[in-house]
């Protein structure tokens, strides 16, 4: 199972760009990288997913270097409402892993606190 390592916590100020890096040194060829956001008293919410290079959506960007041993979630111009826990998940498509999501392990995540 691909193990991920993220910083436990990060602080930022409103309007700044925040970059959260996730290490996954033993990522497998079939693995994708997915990021979720979780607010208190809510379930996690999908942010972005990628396999290689760069992926961008309306919320964030995901940068994946060529060796894929790490990835960086970039949140542009954060606001107070971006204060949450961010999880990095690494795992294969369920079509390959016999359909099981067990390999998609949530670690302890990164607590991002955005300050005014």
């Amino acid at each position, binding site marked *: 199972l691909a193990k991920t390592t993220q910083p436990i916590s990060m602080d930022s100020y409103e309007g700044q760009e925040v970059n959260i890096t996730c290490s996954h040194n033993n990522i497998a060829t079939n693995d994708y*990288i997915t990021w979720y956001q979780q607010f208190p008293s*809510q*379930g996690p919410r999908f942010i972005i997913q990628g396999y290689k290079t760069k992926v961008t959506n309306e919320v964030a960007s995901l940068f994946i270097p060529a060796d894929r041993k790490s990835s960086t979630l970039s949140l542009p111009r954060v606001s107070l409402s971006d204060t949450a826990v961010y999880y990095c*998940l690494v795992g294969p*498509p369920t079509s390959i892993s016999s*359909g099981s*999501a067990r390999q*998609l392990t*949530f670690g302890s995540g990164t607590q991002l606190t955005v300050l005014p």
Partner: protein
Amino acid sequence: EAGVAQSPRYKIIEKRQSVAFWCNPISGHATLYWYQQILGQGPKLLIQFQNNGVVDDSQLPKDRFSAERLKGVDSTLKIQPAKLEDSAVYLCASSPWGTTGGGELFFGEGSRLTVL
């Protein structure tokens, strides 16, 4: 589009009592997941259903936990008898069949269980 519905939101019981949680996934989503999230930790997969069949229940403590998904739609997770260490948030998630990579998983708001 309605999200994943869960109930109850909160439940307090004494140890050795039983409790049941209900989940209604997003319409049309064939895959349903139950996760356990202990305070300060990321969600941990307990069981995964594909329609009304079990894909993976390897991390479900089967001596006290049971889950079913009759007719391939709603699901119930039961704990009997409960232990103090079962205090956690129980999250239900659903996804369409054949998702790429890690998801996207759509989570409900969770059911918070306190065992006294």
